[in-house]
């Protein structure tokens, strides 16, 4: 598995590099470290969400509610911040993660205990959570001047030259790698998606593992709720509308198989970065932003076709050809 994935990650890294160089060749400065750091910073939220989604997809499920979860947690913490500017930001972040966890757990419970297909569950909660944002806010926007300075300052504060937002993404990547590679839960994600039936025989509780994946995805979405709202210094009902599809697309481009059990942290990160580079390169390259949608659609199709080709097994070979005589 690792061999194949490594090569797939290599190809994806190559594609990203080629893309960067292509833009750089026509528009000096795109590949400058400062700009690349900005691209990474801009993609941080997508990376974090893609890592959560990856856990879910590994277990053969899908979480379409992440963007709605993000919007709801973002709105709740922004509202709290506006109402009680005195609340420490740390507490609000914990609250965002906590609320995200609860929303993820709700998905997870429906999948685990009631055995409802994940796509149906999260399609339902996608509309419910998004609707709740409206109910919570009464449709009002929370604007930057209503937020406390510390609330909006945290993600853009720089540390060793990088904004805190980027550092959060880096930390999440590291933790995700640790979780996936080195903990039993991480391995359980693969087993559950790779062969749910066999997972039961190995003592893995398939339902519980899926639940945990949804909780993880929810918690990260909650974290992103705070990050998004404070970064753009605005909260409203349609925050990150339709972003769940970008997240799924990042995973797919990163080689995480929708059939479960296949994928890696590196793949998810690279998939997100690929989309991030395209998004940032278009305005710089002077391509009309109206092209962006079609380009990312084409990228998804090409990536999935490519991954399927890489995954296709050579098939066992019964015939032992005698090369020498030929």
């Amino acid at each position: 598995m690792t061999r194949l994935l490594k090569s797939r990650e290599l190809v994806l890294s190559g594609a990203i590099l080629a893309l960067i160089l292509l833009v750089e060749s026509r528009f000096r400065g795109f590949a400058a470290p400062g700009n690349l750091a900005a691209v990474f910073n801009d993609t941080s939220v997508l990376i974090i969400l893609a890592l959560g989604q990856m856990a879910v997809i590994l277990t053969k499920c899908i979480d379409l509610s992440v963007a709605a979860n993000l919007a709801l947690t973002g709105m709740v913490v922004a509202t709290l911040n506006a109402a009680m500017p005195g609340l420490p930001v740390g507490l609000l972040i914990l609250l965002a993660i906590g609320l995200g966890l609860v929303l993820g757990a709700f998905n997870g419970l429906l999948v685990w205990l009631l055995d409802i297909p994940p796509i149906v569950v999260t399609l339902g909660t996608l509309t419910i959570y998004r609707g709740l944002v409206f109910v919570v806010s009464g449709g009002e926007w929370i604007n930057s001047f209503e937020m406390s300075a510390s609330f909006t300052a945290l993600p853009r504060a720089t540390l060793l030259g990088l904004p805190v937002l980027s550092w959060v993404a880096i930390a999440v990547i590291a933790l995700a790698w640790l979780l996936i590679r080195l903990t039993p839960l991480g391995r359980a994600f693969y087993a559950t998606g790779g062969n749910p039936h066999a997972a039961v025989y190995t003592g893995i509780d398939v339902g519980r593992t899926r639940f945990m994946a949804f909780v993880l995805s929810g918690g990260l979405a909650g974290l992103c709720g705070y990050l998004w709202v404070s970064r753009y210094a605005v909260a409203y009902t349609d925050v990150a509308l339709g972003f769940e599809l970008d997240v799924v697309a990042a995973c797919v481009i990163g080689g995480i198989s929708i059939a479960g059990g296949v994928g890696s942290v590196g793949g998810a990160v690279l998939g997100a970065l690929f989309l991030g580079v395209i998004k940032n390169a278009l305005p710089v390259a002077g391509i009309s932003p109206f092209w962006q949608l079609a380009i990312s659609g084409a990228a998804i199709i090409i990536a999935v076709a490519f991954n399927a080709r890489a995954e296709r097994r050579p098939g066992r070979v019964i015939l032992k050809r005698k090369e020498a005589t030929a």
Partner: protein
Amino acid sequence: MSTRPGLDIGTRPRHLPDRLTGRVARALRSWELLLLLVGIAIFAANSMASPYFLSAWNLSDATFNFTEKAMIAFAMALLIISGEIDLSVAGIIALASTTMGFALQYGAGTPMLVLIGLGTGLLCGALNGTLVTRMGLPSIVVTIGTMSLFRGISYIVLGDQAFSGYPVGFAVFGQGYVAWVITVELAIFAALALIFGVLLHATKFGRQVFVIGNNPTAAAFSGVRVARVKMILFLLTGLMAGLAAICLTSRLGSTRPSIAQGWELEIVTMVVLGGVSILGGAGSILGVVLAALVMGMVTFGLGLLNVPGIVMSIFIGALLIGVIAIPRLIALARRRAA
């Protein structure tokens, strides 16, 4: 001692009855009945909540809330029963509407516009179908890609512009009436419900759709041309999206690339609420018809109370999960008690 399988060749064959449970008994336990009850309850609640609900003209206006989506939902139901899905339908609407608007610039008349709309739908369906059946790619991912691609092409063509000025004759699809309060769209909806109902439940093709959804490998090993059936379903879905694009464009009288944004999820919701198993292999057109009516009535009823659309969607989401969850919760509780 009980008879053992297979040991009694040569003895008198046993007579196997066709069915043990009658059709009525089955109907009484069905998902459709549950939906019908929900629908009646919502109808009653709406009539009580708003004095404006029970009016033929108002109900006729309300049908626009679901007719176009339901046209696609019928084809989508077949596709989902066969174990595939098409999330690009709203993208197809945008693209088909755009090509129609483009043709309009070159003076195409109503018949030509209709052909172009349907043709674009078919082509998009053909692309999806080819990627899925020829290259063996998972349809959920392929159609997430083509969803962006199709709508993206509309954005490339239109940008921030719009096509408008459709011919007067073209308005008949989305704004015309067949008779009294029966709109053209409602008539199309009813005709399609009948056609798709017969296609799915009374034809060889429909049987093959169910078989494929249950076990595609065994279907192929039984001589069913799986790839062909799936290809036809993708084409059919594309065609219906093209038809919906004609109706919607005609109703709006203009084309923007953002047309029908987010419809794919509403259509899938409609299909699943109609009792079609998202895992494939089970479902009925009657269920989808009932789900369309229920969803239309919920949105219209709440609209009359000036409830914002997004709050309605909470109801739809809760309905989707609730209708599936409640029977399971009861079963779970019963098992716990026992």
